[in-house]
């Protein structure tokens, strides 16, 4: 053997006969369950009755329009989009405060995190909804916004926030969700900032950077790269947790699905369909974050 001998071939990742056997077993088990359920339940599958609630033909114009379930999905996407932005902002600020020298800022952020993390989400949402939103929003005049003002009654507003008449309701749910998720993001951000070595702070200070520039140019860019995976997980959790908001009558996917399931009595079809909708939405976000991660990693090493 000489140095020039090619290295042994790396084992290829291929499915072996054993793997296929395993797949078959799992498929057989699932098939058995479905067969048993069918035999016992004698359930009459009527997908078309539920699918009508995804899209319908408008009687007047004769065109396809979004029906309840698709409208609900849109509201959930709106909640996810604005919720992610709002939670990221709150989480970034609070996470930074957690690492500050100022004792007051640390007490405030720590209290916020502990308060929210140690109350069940459901209870937090009820407290927020009944005691804060129902008191604070009227005081701020957010309860009855002028739906005919040009600020509100335009295509962009409808696209971004949905029906103006439901805006205060949407806003309650949004703030609630963002506040709740931001507590977890706060902890992720804190861990990210603390993972940056002391030498990076010192080097930044030594070349005379202000605290703001130090955070913007040195600390946050490195911290964000490190926390991207847990952050992505938290944003996907946010989408899934948005279902809880249905309890305060925000007309998102789960809320409307409950109504569809009740009125059609087609419980299985409704929830399987809604589950599939959530899956597609969350998997899409997971995919986007995975791409982001690859891009962020590219500039770092190599």
């Amino acid at each position, binding site marked *: 053997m000489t140095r020039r001998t090619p290295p042994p071939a790396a084992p290829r990742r291929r499915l072996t006969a054993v793997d296929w056997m395993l797949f078959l077993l799992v498929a057989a088990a699932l098939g058995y369950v479905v067969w048993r359920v069918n035999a016992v339940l004698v359930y009459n599958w009527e997908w078309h009755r539920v699918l009508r609630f995804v899209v319908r033909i408008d009687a007047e114009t004769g065109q396809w329009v979004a029906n309840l379930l698709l409208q609900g999905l849109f509201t959930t996407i709106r909640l996810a989009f604005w919720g992610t932005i709002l939670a990221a902002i709150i989480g970034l600020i609070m996470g930074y405060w957690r690492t500050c020298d100022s004792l007051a800022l640390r007490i405030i952020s720590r209290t916020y995190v502990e308060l929210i993390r140690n109350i069940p989400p459901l209870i937090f949402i009820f407290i927020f909804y009944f005691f804060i939103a129902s008191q604070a929003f009227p005081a701020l005049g957010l309860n009855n916004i002028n739906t005919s003002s040009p600020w509100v009654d335009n295509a962009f507003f409808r696209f971004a926030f949905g029906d103006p008449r439901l805006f205060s309701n949407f806003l309650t749910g949004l703030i609630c969700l963002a506040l709740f998720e931001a507590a977890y993001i706060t902890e992720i951000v804190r861990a990210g900032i603390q993972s940056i070595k002391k*030498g990076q702070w010192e080097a930044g200070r030594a070349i*005379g*950077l202000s605290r703001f520039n130090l955070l913007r*140019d040195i600390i946050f*860019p490195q911290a964000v790269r490190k926390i991207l995976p847990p952050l992505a997980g938290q944003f996907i959790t946010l989408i899934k947790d948005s279902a809880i908001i249905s309890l305060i009558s925000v007309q998102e996917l789960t809320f409307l699905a409950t109504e569809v399931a009740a009125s059609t009595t087609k419980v299985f079809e409704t929830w399987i369909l809604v589950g599939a909708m959530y899956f597609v939405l969350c998997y899409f976000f997971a995919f986007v974050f995975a791409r982001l991660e690859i891009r962020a990693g590219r500039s770092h090493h190599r």
Partner: protein
Amino acid sequence: MTETSDRPLVEISGLCKWYNDFSALYDINMNVARGEKVVICGPSGSGKSTLIRCINQLEEHQKGTLFVDGKEVRPGMKGIEQIRRDVGMVFQSFNLFPHMTVLDNLVLGPVRNRGMSRTKARELAMGYLEKVRIAEQAAKYPPQLSGGQQQRVAIARALCMQPKIMLFDEPTSALDPEMIAGVLDVMESLARDGMTMIVVTHEMGFARRVADRVVFMDEGEIVEVATPEEFFTTPKTDRAAQFLSQLLAH
């Protein structure tokens, strides 16, 4: 010129620092003239690093006074950034910014602190990268470079602020032996250009060739100040003699 140019660049008097109850620095008195090169040595934990880190306030002193270029430096002061732009620092572990290219590492300080335009800062940075003989690596990221190369970039980054004094905190201690010479060469050429330098190091060859004075510290105090020749051949104190014998033993 104004009267400040007659004053020493760094004036330290009665400086004290404690970590909780531990006295890290005690009654330090030391001046460094313009263009002077001072080497600080001493056993680990003797306060060498703490002392030079007080000069740009990476550590805050609790007693005594400190002037840099005639301006008083106080703990927690506003506008410490204006002092720091005149005080370059090189760390033992380089501390380059790993998410930026070598060139961007150099450009950041002048752009943010001195309000220089990016184009002008790039020109300046390339000049210093050539000076430390690493210009061809400008577009790379720090983790792609060897330790010696990284330390030379770190020196260039500090120089890019066009400081009046350079502080070196054990710049060669984290380097592989074959990388040390390149870094010391750069430091020596900097010394020849007339830069004021305070260097914490155990490189005795460097100290002999470059230093105007050697300051020996132990247990947070300055024990002995001498020319390199005197210090290395005939140390006046027992503690210095003992330290030197340990240094030579290995």
